[in-house]
């Protein structure tokens, strides 16, 4: 589902954010990317959704070489993905419904279909009773759940999450990780960045460790 071949990334000389990273994530797999701050986790995730273009290397996502896509066609890759961020990236002045529905609006979904899918996604993150509330009025944990609902509402094949629990307390983080597990059980490939070793120990799964831009392999647990 996701394949990276000898990916290098340099933002400024002489430092390499990523050095010769090659990896493969299979369809339906749950994969953690871990490492200390500045190890290149976010760069790696950004390369996967082509927010960042590597200096060298190749990336194949769902059978497509994303580096060969012209910039105006990047949306074709992103429509197959859901992305969750540490800072939620919600439209705080809008309602929960609007925040989740935006992923369907860009696809031109009919309103009735959109309402049904948004409700199902919110029910999955247990926020169906907050559907008409303004996003700004929710707690951090609820806001992150809205972001997850937005990421899964169009049934993506891949879910990428960059430190999704970085702003949450341990209990909420545990709950959010549980959600990702549930989503993965339904067949979605999940790639999740975190530096929280405690959560890795609790949840298990494949772990790819990065250190100073280099992939170390499976992290000891």
């Amino acid at each position, binding site marked *: 589902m996701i394949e990276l071949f000898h990916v290098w990334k340099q933002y400024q000389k002489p430092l390499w954010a990523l050095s010769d990273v090659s990896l493969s994530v299979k369809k339906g797999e749950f994969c953690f990317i871990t490492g200390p701050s500045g190890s290149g986790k976010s760069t790696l995730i950004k390369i996967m*959704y082509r*927010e960042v273009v590597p200096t060298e290397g190749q990336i194949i996502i769902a059978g497509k070489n994303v580096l060969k896509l012209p*910039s*105006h066609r990047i*949306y*074709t890759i*992103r*429509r197959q*993905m859901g*992305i969750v961020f540490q800072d939620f*990236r*919600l*439209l705080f002045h809008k309602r929960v419904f609007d925040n989740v529905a*935006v*992923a369907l*609006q*860009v*696809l*031109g979904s*009919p*309103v009735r279909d959109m309402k049904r899918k948004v409700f199902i996604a919110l029910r999955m993150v247990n926020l169906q009773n907050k559907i008409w509330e303004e996003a700004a009025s929710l707690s951090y944990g609820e806001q992150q759940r809205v972001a997850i609902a*937005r990421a899964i509402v169009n049934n993506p094949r891949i879910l990428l999450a960059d430190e999704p629990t970085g702003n949450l307390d341990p209990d909420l983080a545990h709950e959010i990780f549980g959600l990702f597990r549930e989503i993965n059980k339904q067949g979605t490939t999940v790639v999740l960045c975190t530096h929280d070793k405690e959560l890795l120990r609790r949840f298990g799964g494949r772990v790819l460790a990065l250190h100073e831009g280099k992939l170390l392999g499976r992290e000891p647990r």
Partner: protein
Amino acid sequence: MILRRSRYFVREAARNLWHFKTRHAISLAIICLSFVILGVFLCLSNNLRERARAMAQNLAVVFYLDGNMPAAERLPVEEEIRRSPLVGSVREVAPDEASARFLRDFPDLKEIVLNLGLNPFPPSIEVSLKDPSTPAEAILGFIEGIKRNPAVRDVQFNRDWADKIASLGRIATAIGLFFGGILVLAAFIIISNVIKLIVIARKSEIEILRLVGATNTFIRVPFLLEGTILGAAGGLLSIVLVFGLIRLFPAAAGQTLGALQELIGFRFLTFGQSLALVVGGGFVGFLGSLSSIARFLRI
């Protein structure tokens, strides 16, 4: 699908227009002012051209006669005029009638005339020509022939006036296009900057749209629509204001306009011109948005 998308674009554009209403109100005022100036000069030009056209279609020559000569000596002039094949109608205007007409058209100058103690207007013969397309040479030949009569003191031929008014109309159009053009350029820059500020204010929203797989068109269209609506609304508002000015100005100026009111007539813009102002406003708004998103909306 197209209808759903269109509904979304219109809703987003309307939401932005409302959300940034202060910025939009300022830009709307400037767009409107630009088009009001253009509209006023277009009206003036229309009126002058219309007047020139009417005068050219109703060609008239006025022969001023010597008032000191006895009426019997002036009579051959009128008879000679009537004999010409170029002449349509002939009307004799007595000094009293000329005076009354002047006092009616120029009430502010009434005192000057009355203080003279005598009627300064000579008797005259107003001649309308049969065919408005008569060559100037033929008319001038006819005038020269009549002028040889000693009873004729002066001649006024309104084609000169028609030409002068027509050229005034052209000057008014040129002035309107010059100043209007400068202001339309200012409106373009203002719309471009307003859209730029909105793009910056909505940066995070645009970012989210990109991440959930929105196409470039999907992100850009609401901004283009917003600029177009703003420009067209400015054009429409300017038409309303020009209409108000045309209606209110003569009423406010009252009698002081005198013959000027008759000369100008205060006609409104034609339908085509009104439509051009609205469409032109929309086009300027569209271009302003386009230039802004091309520079600041990197997707």
